[in-house]
């Protein structure tokens, strides 16, 4: 194919890759070591367009920041180039992106997927191609626990622990008893509803209704009207930010007098910014400790701010940053060999990272035991323990409604 023909075939995704590579190159070219070190290519895959693009762009930026820092480090043995691919949070697109990455022999490893539906769809692709892929945001347990592929690891936790803590907290700490569950009908939303429902019943909570809704649905008035009739104390939503915003805002418009509780999927700056005053008192749960509370967290946030990315890092940006660093550590130790790097990554034990110590179990799953509880306060996510709701200075909406 001639270069002219190639140009006419450029897709939007390729343009994105090209621009990100150019941007990174512009930052890194001045280093003298650039030309002397052998080059190794890394892939990043996440949702850069579509409804969850804000999380994908935050992850991409964090990944690029890690690569940028390592390239600037004279001690690294290699110079790292990046291939950024958009999975649009769609399984079919994700498989194409994974195939593109795995079929490029120059790409040694990938930092892959925020959405569970895309991560689970691509597991076999990475395994068959023998390319190590470290998941940086998807929380569906099956992504790591449905197989023992050496190639697939995950730096963030699963939704199992998250929902266990979320259910216990809502029932035992906050004293809510009745729940209406609304979830998106993707693997992500369904699995969240399954796990939350199981833990909720164990904790003594009662599920009044469960309703599945389409991802990216605009109107939730029908579901909320139906839930409202049962007078639940809590409306729980298992889904991602854009839909979570709609559920919460429409709850308020319909006058649903219930506490709103979400999953890690809504814990984003975008949720607070878009829902505005409606976000106040919303609960969400995320694996690991808050970035700013970790020893390296503040440095990450400062470096991120200094890099002047257009988008915020969002909740899972630090995980993408850590995944990129772990992958680079493995390449530095083993050389640019996919099989050796995969073996090394699977045996990751306790390196200190900005999300704390990382330790993979036999499935390649980071055994994150800590789940952080957040509440939206004055347009920001605040760790529950640090919030005015915990101190008693403010009252959660759900508790106010109980007293009415």
């Amino acid at each position, binding site marked *: 194919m001639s270069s002219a023909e190639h140009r006419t075939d450029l897709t939007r995704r390729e343009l994105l890759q090209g621009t990100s590579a150019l941007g990174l190159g512009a930052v890194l070219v001045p280093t003298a070591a650039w030309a002397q070190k052998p080059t190794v290519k890394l892939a990043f895959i996440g949702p850069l367009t579509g*409804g969850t693009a804000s999380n994908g762009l935050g992850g991409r930026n964090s990944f690029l920041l890690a690569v940028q820092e390592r390239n600037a480090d004279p001690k690294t043995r290699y110079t790292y180039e990046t291939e950024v691919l958009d999975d649009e949070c769609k399984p079919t697109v994700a498989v194409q992106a994974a195939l593109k990455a795995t079929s490029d022999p120059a790409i040694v490893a990938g930092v892959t997927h925020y959405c569970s539906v895309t991560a689970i769809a691509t597991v076999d692709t990475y395994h068959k191609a023998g390319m190590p892929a470290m998941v940086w945001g998807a929380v569906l347990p099956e992504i790591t626990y449905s197989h023992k592929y050496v190639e697939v690891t995950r730096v963030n936790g699963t939704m199992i622990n998250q929902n266990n803590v979320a259910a216990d907290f809502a029932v035992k700490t906050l004293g809510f008893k009745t729940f209406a569950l609304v979830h998106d009908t993707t693997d992500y939303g369904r699995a969240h509803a399954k796990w939350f429902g199981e833990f909720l019943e164990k904790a003594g909570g009662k599920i009044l209704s469960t309703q599945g809704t389409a991802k990216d649905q605009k109107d939730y008035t029908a579901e909320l009207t139906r839930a409202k009739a049962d007078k639940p104390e809590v409306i729980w939503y298992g889904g991602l930010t854009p839909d979570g915003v*709609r559920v919460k*805002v429409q709850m308020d418009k319909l006058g649903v007098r219930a506490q709103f509780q979400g999953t890690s999927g809504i814990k984003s700056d975008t949720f607070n910014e878009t829902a505005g005053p409606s976000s106040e008192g919303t609960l969400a749960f995320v694996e690991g400790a808050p970035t700013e509370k970790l020893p390296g967290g503040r440095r990450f946030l400062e470096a991120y701010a200094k890099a002047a990315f257009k988008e915020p890092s969002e909740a899972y940006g630090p995980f993408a940053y850590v995944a990129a660093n772990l992958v680079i550590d493995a390449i530095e130790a083993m050389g640019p060999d996919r099989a050796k790097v995969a073996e090394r990554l699977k045996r990751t034990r306790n390196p200190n990272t900005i999300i704390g110590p990382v330790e993979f179990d036999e499935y390649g799953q980071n055994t994150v035991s800590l789940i952080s509880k957040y509440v939206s306060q004055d347009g920001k996510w605040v760790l529950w323990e640090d919030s005015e709701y915990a101190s008693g200075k403010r009252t959660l909406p759900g508790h106010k409604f109980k007293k009415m």
Partner: protein
Amino acid sequence: MPPLELLLQQAWNGVMLGVMYALVAVGFTLFFGVLDVIHFSHGDIFMLGAFAGLTVLVGLKAAGLGGPLLALPLTFAASILVTGLVGVAAERVCVKPLARASPLMTLLATLSLGLVIRESVLIFYPRGADPKPFPQLLPQGGFEVGGVAIRYESLVILGIGLAAMVAVDRVINRTKMGAAIRAVAQEPEAAQMMGVNLDRTVDATFFLGSGLAAVAGILSGLYYSEIHFIMGITGGVIGFSAAAIGGLGNVYGAIVGGLLFGVLQTTAAALIPRGSEFRDVVAFAVVMLFLVFKPSGILGEKSVERV
């Protein structure tokens, strides 16, 4: 069976939804009526209208002119102008040059244009990937009638939606341009022989249909207090389906189709077990039934082609 007030509440929710669908559907039906084209970027023009409205509102607020009585009319006027012109440009770029090509080519061209509009908003609008809060300009609060909660905001939105539909009716039935649109829709060649300027009529049709999409986009923003760059995908498909149910080419059919589609979605969610998962399945199944058993739609006219 849910209690009556719950059913009435769902029906009211459906009417609110249906008003916005109807405004999008009218655009589809106008384009089809006049040029026999399915303008698939119309959903994204609906989204563009919402973003244009938001931009104007933000600008007016920054200029200290954020009061609803001034801001709302200005926002509607500016957004209608923007989407109207984009609609005319879309016709000139994607429809007119392909007039003699297969209808499939027009379909593909308009689909592609929709993608260009959507991705342009994503890339060029500040933090375009995120859902955007839409200012609450209408009176909040509400009242109950027979167990049905009605918000003041919803009444205003319904009023604006109905006013827009009446305005379209007046334009089509009581103006010279409306007569030209009807004439072109009926028989373009005869209309031209009678002195109707085809290009101007087609431009006016696309301006009108696309302007209505802006009204729908702003109303959607006001109703949900949030807009997102992907809102035109579903909005477009549903708008087209509503137009098909009502009878493609018939403006009143599009309005009936829009309202029916909205009520179908909400009542399906209320009446069927696990209905919220199947609301779209039910609504689109009805579209399929119409296409199979009554392809001309509820108010569509039988078309007889003499040879």
